[in-house]
């Protein structure tokens, strides 16, 4: 009978915490399963690939080559190799195909060059797959004898080095979306007193400032550990710190907005856990946007976290000027501003409900 009484208690507790139960037992598993829909394939077919015509290539050459590229990727034309290389460093594309002019000449041998970036290490193996696919597609669709050459730009990187910025980004996501809301919620009882002495906005501003500044500690630890392991990563460069700071700001503001919109309830922490899983699954952190499906690519390209990951990786691994990522940084700053507005609105809702 004890067991029956205890089970009855659990049933009542579930009824009392319905919001938490819905988030934990319905929305989270439902979201995870729904998220799998964007993972359709393991051979890249929708990865964006740059297409650059060399001087003697015609519009017709390009059109036919583009049709060939479409079979294994999503082609994007660029006017010059320099422009295409920049797009490669910005991860707008993950390969660049340089098309010579004699591809329509049946008696000629045309050398197509495919360029990839050393910094995107996990794509190294799939690239070989894509290069093979490209060679067979070009051979099939172009009259000339096609030979494909594969070039890599940038410093050779190990998978370990690649994972340092990715891991750091993942840490910032957990720290901002889970830890900070958890910390604020743990002080929920004192918030009433704080509101008699100060403004809730000021209390949260102090949290964002303090925990944002404290982020320098894990970054320094990452830099020191990476140096000890002999990795060549610029974890402490001003640009890296700026990107991580902006990323922390908008993720923390979103996490806190969810917390206050849900009245500081436990369910907010699980809702934020759902956001963390979403960020990890949909931001194309390790594989290129479009690797798994076009939907995955579209979702990734719409998420600021995707650009945070690219910019963090670039500032730590690539030797590229900051100006190359100016629009990404602007997008991150705009996201931070919008997130702060969302947080302010959540605070208004929280206070009006009282």
């Amino acid at each position, binding site marked *: 009978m004890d067991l029956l009484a205890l089970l009855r208690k659990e049933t009542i507790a579930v009824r009392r915490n319905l919001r938490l139960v819905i988030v934990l037992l319905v929305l989270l598993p439902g979201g995870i399963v729904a998220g799998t829909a964007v993972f359709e394939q393991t051979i890249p077919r929708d990865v964006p690939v740059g297409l650059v015509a060399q001087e003697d290539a015609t519009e017709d050459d390009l059109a036919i080559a583009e049709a060939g590229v479409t079979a294994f990727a999503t082609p994007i034309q660029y006017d010059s190799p320099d422009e295409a290389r920049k797009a490669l460093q910005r991860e707008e594309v993950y390969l660049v195909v340089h098309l010579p002019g004699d591809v329509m000449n049946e008696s000629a041998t045309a050398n197509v060059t495919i360029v990839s970036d050393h910094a995107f290490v996990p794509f190294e193996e799939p690239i070989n797959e894509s290069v093979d696919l490209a060679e067979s597609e070009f051979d099939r669709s172009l009259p000339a004898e096609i030979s494909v050459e594969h070039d890599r730009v940038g410093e050779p990187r190990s998978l370990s080095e690649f994972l340092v910025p990715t891991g750091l980004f993942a840490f910032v996501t957990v720290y901002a979306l889970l830890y900070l809301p958890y910390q604020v919620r743990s*002080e929920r*009882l004192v918030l009433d007193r704080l*509101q008699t002495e100060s403004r809730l906005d000021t209390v949260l501003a102090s949290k964002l400032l303090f925990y944002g500044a404290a982020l320098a500690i894990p970054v320094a630890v990452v830099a020191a550990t990476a140096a000890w392991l002999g990795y060549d990563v610029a974890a402490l460069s001003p640009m890296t710190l700026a990107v991580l700071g902006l990323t922390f700001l908008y993720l923390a503001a979103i996490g806190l907005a969810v917390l206050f919109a849900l009245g500081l309830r436990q369910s907010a922490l699980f809702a934020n856990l759902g956001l963390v899983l979403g960020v990890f699954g949909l931001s194309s952190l390790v594989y290129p946007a479009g690797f798994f499906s076009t939907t995955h690519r579209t979702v990734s390209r719409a998420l600021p976290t995707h650009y945070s990951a690219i910019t963090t990786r670039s500032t730590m691994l690539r030797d590229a000027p900051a100006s190359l990522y100016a629009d990404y940084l602007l997008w991150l700053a705009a996201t931070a501003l919008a997130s702060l507005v969302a947080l302010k609105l959540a605070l208004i809702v929280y206070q009006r409900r009282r």
Partner: protein
Amino acid sequence: MTDTDSDLDADANADVTDRRSRGQGADTSADVDGDADRNTGTLALTDVTKRYGETTALEDLTLEFRPGTFHGLIGPNGSGKTTLFALLAGLVRPSSGRIERDDAVTVGYSFQEPRFYPDLTVRENLEIFRGFGDDPPPASWIETLLAELRLEPAADRRAGELSGGFRKKLDLGLALVKRPQFLLLDEPLADVDDYSRRRIRAFLEDYRRDDRTIVISTHNVAAFAETLDRLTVLVDGELRFDGVPDDDVVEQYRELLD
């Protein structure tokens, strides 16, 4: 103003003076900055109603809290006392009506359920909240509070580890730490031992010098029967009485409830 107010004003002022002379509490004068803390501000409600969904917590309430008074806010559980304090402290907004509170007025609030940083010690909590003021009292005020509220034995313990009585006294200390002009105390003696109760009552009586106002919310009218200058009785969110208390406040309260 309520209809009981106007005819009792003159008596009330006379009674305030009379009752103040009875205060024999601890001498806090050494830490008081004189005119700087003198209460000249306003704290009042006019036609205030507060609803939570379909529930009306307070209905059309008009009240004024006067400088230098020991004001008892009495009523049974669920009568709206805590809601009234939350309105006065600015934690909730009225559904209708107006709350008058001068910008310069300082209000300290001791909550029914203590509110503090559980990870900080008693002393650290007091120091942090003292720092919120633009013109905080001297640091020696914290030592005075630790002594008068009998918090010294727990001064260096983490607040989250305190027993119920110490938690309540810490919350009272936090309400007092900026030496506010208006002090709102919600069941301030709950869980507090008898000896500490006497010390706290005496301290509070002394504190209201320099026209500071103490508003005590309680359902235990007997605990402060001897010290009240003014009595407000709330029942089911409505004002049942507001004026000078009778000599036998307990009996008066019983009659008002009946």
